């Protein structure tokens, strides 16, 4: 029995496909076991019944805006939570997929559910969420059960990392990264890791060691964090999917905080704001930039 929100999502998807507003609707469908939800791609209006909505719709579907097997359908309609849409905004700003070819079906989201057997770090975003109603939508699916006011917790819970000494931080992260098996699930699931050839795959010269040993793991996880500084919208997907439970989002949160303090900028808030790393001013106060 579909919920009211599911029914609205299905009706919206059907209209979009029937009118030709988009060639595909990327949404959530029932997973392979009862606890799972998986991405689905609907091209036939008769299939909209496959779409589901619940608090296990974890995936950030903006990921698919850059995938050839999805782009082939032309205009792409994507169902998204607020945090997912923030990633789509960054993709538009970075010219990875045109705004005008994206149809955003935003859904009010009250936060995702914990996952049995996984650390809760990936849900840190929900405690401080101020995009329960997506910031940009072409079609808004309201959920009366969700209070869309921003979360009252202004600051993220202190993860205790800032107060550590450099040596303690190094020991903490080396220990975390020691479990990295270099499966690159963090990269695979990240909407903003869209490079055709990732720096770890550039081997003339080999910038980043590919072996999953201490040094190789340290290089990989830090270079990925740096490449997401000022870009990461903290959807937490990297942390959710890591088979070794490395709290990767903590690195991204730290760097996002540095960018916010230095440039008063948060990624994916608005399509109109100039991203801090895509802007250049001739009268910049810093010498090195001129």
């Amino acid at each position, binding site marked *: 029995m579909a919920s009211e929100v599911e029914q609205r999502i299905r009706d919206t998807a059907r209209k979009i496909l029937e009118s030709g507003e988009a060639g595909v609707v990327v949404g959530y469908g029932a*997973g*392979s*076991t*009862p*606890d*799972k*939800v*998986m*991405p*689905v*791609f609907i091209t036939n209006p008769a299939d909209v019944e496959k779409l589901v909505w619940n608090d296990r719709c974890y*995936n950030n579907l903006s*990921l*698919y805006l850059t*995938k*050839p*097997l*999805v782009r082939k359908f032309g205009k792409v309609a994507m169902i998204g939570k607020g945090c997912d849409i923030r990633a789509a905004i960054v993709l538009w700003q970075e010219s990875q997929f045109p705004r005008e070819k994206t149809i955003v079906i935003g859904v009010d989201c009250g936060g995702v559910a914990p996952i049995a*057997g*996984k*650390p809760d770090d990936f849900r840190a975003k929900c405690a401080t969420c101020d995009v329960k109603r997506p910031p940009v939508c072409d079609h808004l699916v309201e959920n009366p059960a969700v209070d869309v006011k921003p979360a009252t917790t202004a600051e993220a819970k202190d993860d205790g990392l800032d107060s550590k000494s450099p040596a303690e931080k190094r020991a903490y992260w080396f220990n975390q990264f020691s*479990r990295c*098996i*270099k*499966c*690159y*699930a963090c*990269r*695979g*699931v990240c909407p903003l890791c869209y490079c055709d*050839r990732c720096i770890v*795959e550039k081997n003339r010269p*080999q910038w980043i*060691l*590919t*072996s*999953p*040993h201490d040094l*190789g793991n340290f290089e990989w996880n830090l270079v990925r964090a740096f490449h997401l500084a000022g870009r990461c919208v903290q959807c937490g*997907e990297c942390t*959710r*999917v890591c*088979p*070794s*439970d490395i709290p990767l989002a903590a690195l991204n949160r730290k760097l996002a905080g540095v960018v916010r303090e230095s440039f008063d900028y948060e990624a994916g808030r608005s399509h109109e704001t100039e991203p801090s790393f895509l802007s250049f001013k001739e009268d910049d106060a810093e010498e090195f930039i001129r």
Partner: protein
Amino acid sequence: MEMKSISGESLKKLLDAEIKSGVKVFAPVREGQLVNHRPVQSSGEICWDFKNTRLSPKHAVFPRSETIIKGARTDGGVQIEDAEPDAGPAILFAARPCDASSLTALDALFNWDYTDKFYQARRDALCVIGMACVDPAEQCFCAAVGGSPLSEKGSDVLLIPVKSSGYAAKACTDKGAKLMEKHAAMFGPAPADIPSAEEIAGKQLRKKDLTNAKAKLDARFDDPIWEAVARKCVGCGCCAFICPSCHCFDIVDEPIPVERFERKKNWDSCCFGTYTLHASGHNPRPSQERRYRNRVMHKFSYFPERFGILKCSGCGRCGAQCPVNLDIYDVVAEIVES
């Protein structure tokens, strides 16, 4: 061989005695929410309450990274030496039957046209103590691929938890019999309440028969279904790296300060875009549906054709851990039933 029994306390003593005699014991250990096999210093570190480990225990014989050649620049040349495998006597304790049976697939591969000495040295020195499943997980489908929660395949000793207390214990190979003889005093007569494989497999939710998928898969090699199933694949290597029978590796030469290098053998995955990328720039598997098709075909068509066994033991890790829940059971079942 004869079924015996062992109590939980005696089992710990057996493992501690082996550790004390210098045997490396890989056992499930809990770290945060993770349970994985790793070498333990005492039976006290062992996690006894787990359905299956997050990663498969294949790293006991096929580590995620290992050095196979070492070299250094010398005056006027390069000196190269073989690395030797770090392979002392070892026990893999509490491998689930799916993971133990996967070792037979790895054995076939690493002894195919050439024996991989690194793999085989570890494998020869390894005694596998399997731990039967009495409480299968939602993701499990060993019975669908010809396995069983009580399968002895790949185990040298199989332990079966019994309701009364302790374990039924059976030596499955000479290696296992020797281990049990060595600790004979710890074993008693067979318990009366050994569960049946049918009883436990009956609890599994995923039972479609996937053992003869080859013909149907081969017939649909060029079918649009591959694009449909692989559209959501994000091209990571999570499935392959947590899989007990995926065995692909990449060879890389790494610089070591100063003026030295090491050649490494690292896990690799056919779902990576660079896996088949040629130096010329040509890629015979240029898109994700072809890469994912290879993953399925290799497990259910090419490997059975070459070695007579499936390269999937139904542990269900790939579907459960996949970032987008791309589940090989569902994919193969859909094709088998079509």
